[in-house]
């Protein structure tokens, strides 16, 4: 009658084992203390029940005991804290060189874009054994990207990019849930993660028509929206040169410094007045309403690509051939 009765989730990422190990340690501690308290209560209340013990013996307390049962739990708690933080550190820092996939949450679906250009909805194909970094944003409310088999979860916020990463260890299909309550069809915001052997993944990437890579799409948009007229790749532009800018600190007009990450790029497109780069006038128009969330993702990917591909081959102040402007 019942389909099946799992009591423990599948374990399909390099993180899962680490989380589970800590989980088992905490279960052991919890079992120990629950049993201890239960046994003490049972033994005391039966041994000293009023039928056997007519008069209670008054005991004031004991400093030694109080210290013991403060300090021992405290030190166990500190072990949990350090261990929990170690697991979290591993989880919170994407390794260098991870392949990137963009995710957009929206009431009520997940949209994915691979840098190679593939787009998917509510389904994400990834290769086994490779570090995958998700770069995520929301089109409306807060969602949360949750893959139980990977022990991975991260909230997905509007107007901001958050990220998480994982490395799948076992091919298969796994649940992807939205874990932050997001309105009517919250429980319908379920997707699948398909973990494939690398060769199968390559084949999958190759199959089906796509419009070229994500950064190529971004480049096209960059031209269409006229970004290239100001953001020229020489020093003559009325806007900052974007080649090599991604991931670098930027000095602002008001003296602050920010890192040019995904969120910064997105904000600069939609709300350019918010953080004006030092030495430039706040003349950039807003593109709010003209670019979709997917378009923004491709623009980000394009600007990112300007830094990744060119950095190695050119000097800082010797901008590339007319990559952005020309074509």
């Amino acid at each position: 009658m019942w389909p099946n009765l799992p009591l423990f989730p599948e374990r399909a990422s390099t993180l899962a084992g680490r989380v589970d190990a800590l989980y088992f340690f905490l279960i052991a501690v919890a079992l120990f203390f629950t049993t201890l308290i239960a046994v003490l209560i049972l033994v005391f209340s039966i041994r000293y029940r009023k039928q056997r013990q007519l008069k209670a013996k008054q005991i004031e307390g004991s400093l030694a005991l109080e210290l013991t049962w403060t300090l021992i739990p405290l030190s166990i708690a500190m072990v949990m804290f350090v261990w929990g933080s170690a697991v979290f550190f591993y989880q919170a820092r994407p390794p260098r060189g991870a392949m990137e996939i963009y995710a957009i949450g929206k009431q009520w679906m997940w949209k994915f874009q691979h840098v190679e250009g593939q787009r998917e909805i509510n389904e994400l194909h990834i290769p086994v054994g490779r570090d995958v970094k998700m770069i995520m944003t929301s089109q409306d409310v807060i969602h949360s990207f949750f893959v139980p088999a990977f022990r991975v979860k991260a909230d997905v916020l509007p107007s901001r990019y958050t990220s998480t990463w994982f490395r799948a260890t076992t091919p298969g299909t796994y649940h992807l849930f939205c874990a932050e309550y997001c309105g009517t069809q919250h429980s319908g915001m379920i997707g699948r993660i398909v973990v494939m052997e690398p060769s199968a993944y390559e084949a999958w990437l190759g199959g089906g028509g796509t419009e070229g890579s994500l950064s190529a799409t971004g480049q096209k948009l960059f031209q269409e929206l006229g970004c290239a007229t100001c953001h020229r790749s020489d020093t003559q532009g009325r806007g900052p040169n974007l080649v090599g800018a991604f991931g670098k600190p930027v000095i602002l007009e008001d003296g602050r410094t920010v890192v040019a990450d995904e969120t910064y790029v997105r904000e600069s497109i939609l709300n350019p007045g918010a953080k004006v780069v030092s030495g430039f006038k706040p003349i950039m128009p807003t593109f709010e309403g003209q670019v979709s969330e997917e378009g923004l993702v491709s623009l980000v990917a394009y600007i990112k690509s300007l830094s990744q591909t060119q950095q190695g081959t050119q000097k800082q102040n010797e901008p590339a051939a007319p990559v952005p402007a020309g074509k």
Partner: protein
Amino acid sequence: MATTVQPVEQQNYLNSNYGIKSWLLTTDHKRIGLLYLMSITLFFFLGGFFAMLIRLELLTPASDLMQSDNYNKVFTMHGIIMVFLFLIPSIPAVLGNFLVPLMVGAKDLAFPKINLASWYLFMLGGVVALYGMVTGGVDTGWTFYTPFSTTYSNTNVVTVAIGVFITGFSSIFTGLNIMVTVHRMRAPGMTWGRLPLFIWSHYATSVIMVLGTPVIAITLLLVALERLFHIGIFNSQLGGDPLLFQHLFWFYSHPAVYIMILPSMAVISEIVACYSRKRIFGYNFVALASVAIAVFGFLVWAHHMFVAGISVYAAMIFSLLSFLVAIPSAVKVFNWTATLYKGSVHFDTPMLYAFGFIGLFTIGGLTGLFLASIGIDVHVHDTYFVVAHFHYIMVGGAVMGYLGGLHFWWPKISGRLYPEGWAKLSALLIFVGFNVTFFPQFLLGYLGMPRRYAAYPEEFQVLNVLSTAGASILAVGYVLPMIYFVWSLRYGKIAGPNPWNAAGLEWRTSSPPPTYNFEETPIVTWEAYNYDEISEEKGVEVAG
């Protein structure tokens, strides 16, 4: 000292005045306590009704009983009613109201009229919230997270938020009243070191109520304003910050958990002392632990936000502080347990509730450590693991304490005894039903079932069915006391002033107490819990 037990027909707070008006205009803290008792009982069963709807929906994987938008409204109403209209006022406003003046030997609370006003505010807030629920409902969850609540939800968010806003004032006033009463109105000889632990806990709770509640009130007001006028505080499209809401919300709502649990701990201390005939082991440490919990409770709010996009280092600091706040709770559990040692333990109903409390609170507290360990929290956050954890604390802990306290002081409140056999049965049903309901949810959570899901994948079904079965047992356990308490009002045995031979001041006046609590202001010359001086057979006689 005194004489014989007085006959019941004597003047007491219940029969000193008749008529609806004498109740609705009363300034007697005991009557106001009863007004609260009646109103929150109503809310509890309303919230319980929604709980049963939730559990019935989750019997099957598909959302077949309700459409998802109805389901969303149902769990939102369940949460709002249980938190704001039941749990927060439960012990402080019912038992605290009734008992604080009696326990410190005062005639009433410091501000009787404000006390009455608190109840009216509470009812007004409750009615406004219910009105919002009836006319369209709300579907934001009791957490009102932005920008969903400010921009995307099409339901009655503003009305309900204003309702909750109003009840907040009732909470602030109650806290203020209790604080001032404890400071200014203690009977001669009732020093801080002689205060019952009940009073210490209520004092700590009141501090949280007074300091924390304004924050949630203002936050909800901001949500309402943003919804109405689009002012861009929380909505990022208007330049606001959705995480700001979460910081403000949890800055109150985490300490609010202690508003729910500290008073319960207060009750447990009294019960454990009485039914093991002993002073609580390590009185000073238990008192201190209450205050420590209240203070540290304010420093851990962001542990609800580990995956919300706060920085790695902020997460670590809040993780550390969360572990620290767990320690005073552990200290209390150990002290209650140690109190039994060499005591003379009575297995009366309130004591069964106290044992239940300690067991469930221990499990709730220990699973809290899982959530404080960031590495695990990332996985279990917003899953049924969290639902199980907070029900162990809030229902297993707070509600067990509340019911235990209601049984313990029922003879004082009503002058009658309840039927012991039925009461024991209810304690047992609640304990068993509770565990069958909520333990499977830990497993569901670790398996990955997210909370607030009307539909779920098939493999989660067996555990959900188990949980729903448990909820039915639990429901019977909760309905029973309702029935026999009402029954006892008429048919219960006359209690006498001190049926349990308990030690507090409140037992030194008749049951039910006269309107002014004590015939003469008591003069306290003994320590709290002087059970060695109270004979097993007779107890303290009635003050003359």
